[in-house]
């Protein structure tokens, strides 16, 4: 069998969450990605976030398209159903799954090829619909499985492993999401777990579409000198105007924040996200200003990271549809079928 099951040997001393589960209970199969791949760190951050939130594993639904990034849904929360769909089309599958049962947690994992080339249309429309899901875009600027072609997020002038410079305009998923009206937009770096874990937790608590663009270097094809998606480059060129701390519903705020430097954003599930302003001029609730800021920094070759924009007011897909509170897949048939008596009445209008 070419599938490698991950041996489950848990240290009895590992901390447990409210459900009595430890972090390893949120892991999945063994990764087959290259050693040092940024995506594996993202997987670890997702595991940590789900563990800390004490999500029942079966409440997590993992969805992906095709590509290196899309493989990672097999590497976390083995107790949740996973769906590795077709290239660039995960957003529609997620939309359908969410339509059927609005009460599960939908985590979509995609890459820059899957999301910004073949799948840019579906991504755009899932954002427009504000489907309640976390969309993690593992962004490395390169096609890994087909060995090193530029992706649509490759920066102007960024060099391939063979030294060729990219001359096409990049698509920045953060700017794209802001333009399309996404209600939660964040960027992080696979090498910055301290930042990434709270962002994923906040994204899961957010009701609506949460885009998290994670710069996640490809050690094999895009981690060299001249690349703008390498570990070294991203570390040196990140700027975080706002840090996000996730506060669980009943958790007391232990960190002391200086007044005027924080914004507390209550989430629908009773938790809150405390935004710490590292740049006093930044306002993460102003979409136009956020977009301008990201663009200005990009001109200075800087990636803006952290929680870039959040909008709690706009209802999600189901709010606008007016869907029943229970999952549609659990509505009893008796309520769905009008029955023989009504059929006669309906047909009367066709006499």
């Amino acid at each position, binding site marked *: 069998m070419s599938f490698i099951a991950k041996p489950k040997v848990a240290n009895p001393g590992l901390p447990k969450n409210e459900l009595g589960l430890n972090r390893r209970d949120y892991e999945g199969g063994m990764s087959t990605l290259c050693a040092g791949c940024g995506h594996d760190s993202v997987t670890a951050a997702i595991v940590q976030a789900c563990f800390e939130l004490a999500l*029942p594993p079966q409440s997590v639904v993992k969805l992906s398209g095709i590509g290196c990034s899309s493989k990672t*849904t097999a590497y976390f929360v083995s107790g949740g159903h996973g769906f590795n769909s077709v290239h660039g089309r995960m957003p*529609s599958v997620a939309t359908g799954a969410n339509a*059927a*049962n609005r009460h599960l947690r939908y985590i979509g994992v995609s890459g820059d090829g899957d999301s910004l080339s073949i799948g840019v249309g579906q991504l755009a429309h899932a954002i427009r*619909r504000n489907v309640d899901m976390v969309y993690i875009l593992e962004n490395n600027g390169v096609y890994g499985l087909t060995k090193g072609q530029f992706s649509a997020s490759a920066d102007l002038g960024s060099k391939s492993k063979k030294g060729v410079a990219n001359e096409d305009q990049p698509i920045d998923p953060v700017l794209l999401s802001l333009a399309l009206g996404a209600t939660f937009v964040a960027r992080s770096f696979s090498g910055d777990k301290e930042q990434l874990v709270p962002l994923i937790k906040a994204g899961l608590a957010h009701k609506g579409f949460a885009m998290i663009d994670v710069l996640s270097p490809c050690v094999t094809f895009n981690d060299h000198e001249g690349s703008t998606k390498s570990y070294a480059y991203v570390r040196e060129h990140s700027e975080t105007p706002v840090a996000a701390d996730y506060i669980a519903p009943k958790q007391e705020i232990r960190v002391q924040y200086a007044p005027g430097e924080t914004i507390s954003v209550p989430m629908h599930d009773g938790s809150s996200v405390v935004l710490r302003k590292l740049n006093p001029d930044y306002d993460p609730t102003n979409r136009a200003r956020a977009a301008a800021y990201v663009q200005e920094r990009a001109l200075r070759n800087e990636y803006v990271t952290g929680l870039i924009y959040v909008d709690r007011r706009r209802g999600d897909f189901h709010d606008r549809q007016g869907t029943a509170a229970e999952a*549609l897949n659990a509505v009893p048939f008796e309520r*769905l079928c009008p029955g023989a008596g009504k059929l006669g009445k*309906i*047909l009367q209008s066709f006499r």
Partner: protein
Amino acid sequence: MPERHKTAAARVNDFTVKFANVNGSGSASANALVMKAIFRMGVPVVGKNFFPSNIQGLPTWYEIRVTREAWRARAGRVDVMVAMNAETYARDAKEVAPGGCLLYDSTWPRSSLLARDDIRTCGVPFAQLCNEQFEGARARTLMKNIMYAGTLAALIDLDLEVIRGLLAETYAKKPALVDSNMKAIEVGYRWAREHFDCPLTTRIERMDATRGHVMIDGNTAAALGCLYAGATVGAWYPITPSTSLMDAFRGFCAKHRTDPQTGRRDYVVVQAEDELAAIGVVIGAMWNGARAFTPTSGPGISLMEEFIGLAYYAEVPAVIFDVQRVGPSTGMPTRTQQCDLLACAYASHGDTRHVMLFPDSPEECFTMAVQAFDLAERLQTPVFVLLDLDIGMNDWMAPEFRWDDAWRPDRGKMLTPEQIEGLAKFQRYQDPDGDGIPYRTLPGISPKASYFTRGSGHSKFGAYTEDSAEYQEVLDRLTRKFRTAARLVPAPAVDGRGAAVAIVSLGSCDGAVREALAALRRSGLAIDYLRLRGFPFGAEVEEFLATHQTVFVVEQNRDAQLRSLLTIETAADKAKLRSILHYNGLPMSADCIVEGINRALDRGVAA
């Protein structure tokens, strides 16, 4: 002064009225009014709409066949032409059968070159009468249509009280419109009575042959089937001629799935960005336990193919209504064909084969829509319901649909939480029952039930694999499952046994085939008929093909797709399958079948 009465054979309750109009002028409601009035007088009718892919200003025709024997196809002749479009007048006048009648607007002079002395020509100054009776350009245009309905009522002897009743129902909330429409009807009616011998010998006589029937189109019937089957998620991208299916579903749901107090909706309709997304939504929803469907047409099927292959291989149920239109490419979007048979049967790359249902009428659109969801869930695979524009958009007389309140959806092999708890370990793609159908679980139930769905190579345990034997084992089981499907799809409808010659056909050909069959049998030919209702073909189809020497395969496409499918999927000898093909985009009439078979048998060559 009454016009000279032309001699013609009396055609009581057996004739065709054709209306030549300009689209966007409001003629549809006038034509529907005439058809409904005939239906309410107890006389069977068939309505066929020949409309352009356009919003306003192009020629459009509507044909009503009055048929006391309740035939369901076009007659292939026109007895009364209502020629309201000057642009097409010449060809419309030519189309009237000798002895027939032509009604036209005589407000403007008509070229004497267009006169025919073998038909009766009735000129009514509709535009002038409307200008005298009504104010405003819009009202005058609309009322001109209603007025010709009044004239026609006098000519073919429609009951004005029936028309009044229909108008009262249509405009129940706007009584003023009942009066103005009725006024137009009466003006047209009176003018005809004053100037022509009324009624014609081609006319309506009350019958009692429509009791217990409705006039309905297949798209509406299919939408009703989705409602009754418990579908909760509909996803689509607007495309002619399938759009009215989702419109109807949404309408039914607004009324029957919405809580009147809270407005809570027990359904979701997603207007997707394209057909790729529409089928993706359906797959996601059905994977997650909701009954979901998408209506589309040929171009949509082309776009959905990759996803359909995923659903086949990963074994996710899906229901797809393909309301076929004329291809290839954009083709003629408002014309009918059965040209997606092969595209649906083998949709997607790799080894894929799909379950298909072939309704022949609105009542089967209703029952097969319900069946499609059961089959999709039972077999865990995409199911295509193949309508065409003729069934989907035209009004057919159908017996009132029945519903059994004891019916419950067949969710197939879906494990309950209790069954899951009793399992040592859940494995997704095993075949414990030997029918090729594995067990599935829904997300959210239990961590023990989780599995990974993928379109990449997988083993029977549900794990990723590149191992040849493991891959092949799953693929072979899918073949077993397809054999099971052949036992579950609806059996063919067979008419007659023991003849050497037979017809095999499907879908909307049925009306024309049945009429042809009656004519051929009257002429002394012993001929049997099998109408396919589902794919894969079962033992009954094999046996029928084996026991007939010559089988005429009647279908509506150029390339004999059904014949190809029969050749590929049955043991039938290719040489004895002969094609009768009709693919000009208009609904079939019986004569092309009768002529095709007579020619082939007389000459002894394939048609």
